[in-house]
C-alpha cells in the first residue's frame, strides 16, 4: 500500500553514528538523543524531527519550536530487513539505527513540540536520506489523511530545501574551520556567521541562486556557483569574507 525503500531498508539513512556530518543543518528525519518531549512521558529519549523541511525555518533561522516524534524500541517491531507497507501506520521503521540488535521505530502518535535550541545542541545519531525523508512524510500524511501521496511529488515539493541543506553543509564544512574557532562557543558563532554568509550569497539579486533551486534543471548551475564561491573564499579571493 505505502511505498518502501528502493533497495536495502537502511537506504533510508544518509548517515548514522559517527558518519553524521557535524555541520549539516537540522532537518526532517534527524534522530537526536536525550530529548524530553513535553506531554510524551517523563523520561528523555531519542526523538526524530518530523516537521516538513519547508516549515522548519524563517529565512536561515530555525523556528523556535519544532515537531518531533518519540523513537521507541520494542521486540515486536519489524525485523531490520522488513519494511511494512501495509498496516502499522503509527510507526516509521528505523532499521539498524544504532548498530545494536534492538529494533527501533518512530512512533508517530507520540508527538510533541520541542525547543529547536535543545535539538540543535543535542547529539544527532542519524540523518535520513532524501528517500527516507519522503517516506517519512508519506507515512505521516497517510496516518493523518488516509491519502497515499506520491513520493516523487513529495520530493519535488521539498527538493529546493534539501539541495540548499546539502550545499550549506558543504559551505560550512569548508569555511567554518577557516575562522579558527577554538571553543564550542566559538565554533557555534563561526557556524552561525557562515550560515548567514551562505544565506546572503544564495539570496543575492532578483534572479537569485535560491530562486533557481525551484527548477530541477537549474540546480546544477547553483551547485557549481556555490562550489566556485567556496573555492574562491578558501583561496582568499576578492569575495573572501575572512
Amino acid at each position: 500500500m505505502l511505498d518502501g525503500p528502493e533497495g536495502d531498508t537502511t537506504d533510508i539513512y544518509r548517515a548514522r553514528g559517527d558518519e553524521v556530518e557535524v555541520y549539516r543543518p537540522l532537518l526532517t528525519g534527524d534522530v537526536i538523543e536525550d530529548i524530553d518531549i513535553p506531554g510524551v512521558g517523563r523520561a528523555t529519549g531519542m526523538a526524530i524531527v518530523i516537521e516538513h523541511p519547508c516549515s522548519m525555518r524563517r529565512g536561515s533561522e530555525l523556528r523556535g519550536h519544532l515537531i518531533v516524534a518519540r523513537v521507541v524500541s520494542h521486540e515486536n517491531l519489524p525485523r531490520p530487513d522488513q519494511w511494512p507497507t501495509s498496516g502499522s501506520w503509527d510507526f516509521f521503521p528505523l532499521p539498524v539505527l544504532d548498530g545494536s540488535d534492538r529494533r527501533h521505530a518512530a512512533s508517530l502518535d507520540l508527538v510533541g513540540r520541542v525547543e529547536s535550541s535543545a535539538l540543535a545542541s543535542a547529539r544527532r545519531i542519524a540523518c535520513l536520506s532524501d528517500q527516507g525523508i519522503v517516506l517519512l512524510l508519506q507515512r505521516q500524511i497517510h496516518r493523518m489523511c488516509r491519502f497515499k501521496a506520491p513520493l516523487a511529488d513529495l520530493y519535488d515539493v521539498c527538493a529546493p530545501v534539501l539541495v540548499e541543506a546539502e550545499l550549506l553543509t558543504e559551505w560550512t564544512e569548508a569555511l567554518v574551520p577557516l575562522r579558527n574557532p577554538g571553543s564550542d562557543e566559538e565554533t557555534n558563532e563561526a557556524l552561525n556567521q557562515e550560515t548567514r554568509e551562505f544565506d546572503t550569497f544564495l539570496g543575492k539579486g532578483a534572479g537569485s541562486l535560491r530562486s533557481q533551486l525551484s527548477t530541477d534543471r537549474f540546480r546544477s548551475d547553483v551547485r557549481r556557483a556555490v562550489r566556485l564561491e567556496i573555492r574562491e573564499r578558501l583561496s582568499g579571493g576578492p569575495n573572501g569574507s575572512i
Partner: protein
Amino acid sequence: MKLATTTPFPTAGDSLTIVQPGRVSQTDVAALNRDVAGLRDFVSILDANTRSLHGRTQQRELDELATQRMQEAFARLLDELSTDRGLAWSHIARLVEISVPALRKWRLGKAPAAENRRRVAELCAFMDLLERFPIDEPAGWLEARVASSSTLTGIDLYLTPGGPVALLEYAGHHCSIDDLLDRQVPDWRVRFASDPRLRIVETEDGGRSLVMED
C-alpha cells in the same frame, strides 16, 4: 541477409523505376505492393540490427573512454563531477552505487576500491559523451524527470541495466521517450506514471505546496 520476395532489392548502385499511376495493371500493383512490404520488413530488420550494433559500439566507446579517464587522478574526477558538472554529492553516490559517507571518505582522501574507481570514471565518461548532444546542462538533464508522463529521472534510468547507453541513444534522438521507458522500465506505466492532476504552487510564505487540480 536473404528475404523471401519476388524481386531483388535495389542496391546503392541501382536506379529505381518510378511507376506512373494509372499505367499499371492490377498484377503490377500487387507485385509492387509485395515488394514494398518486403522492403519494409527488410528496413525493419536492418533497423533492429543497426540499433543493436550501435548499442554495442556506443558501449565500447563508453568503456574505452572510461578506461582513459581511469588514468586521471581520482580527486580530479570527483572535482569534475561536483564543481565542473554541478552534480550533488548524494546523486554521485547514488550513480556509482555507494553510500554518502563512503563518498565523503573519498573526498577526504581515502582511496576507493578499483571497482568503484571504475564506476566514477564511467560516470565521467558518460557525462563527456552526453555533452556531445544538444543538452544545455547534462547534470540538470540527469536530475530532472525524463518526461512529464513519468516520475522517473535520468538518474533512475542510468541505474537500470544498460541505462547509460540507452540514455545516450535517447539524447541522440535515436529513440522516443516511450521507447526508452518501455525498454528500460517495462512496467513504468504502472509504477512510475505521474499524476497530471498534481501541481506544485508557490505559496505566500515563500514555500511550495502540492495541490490536486481537476
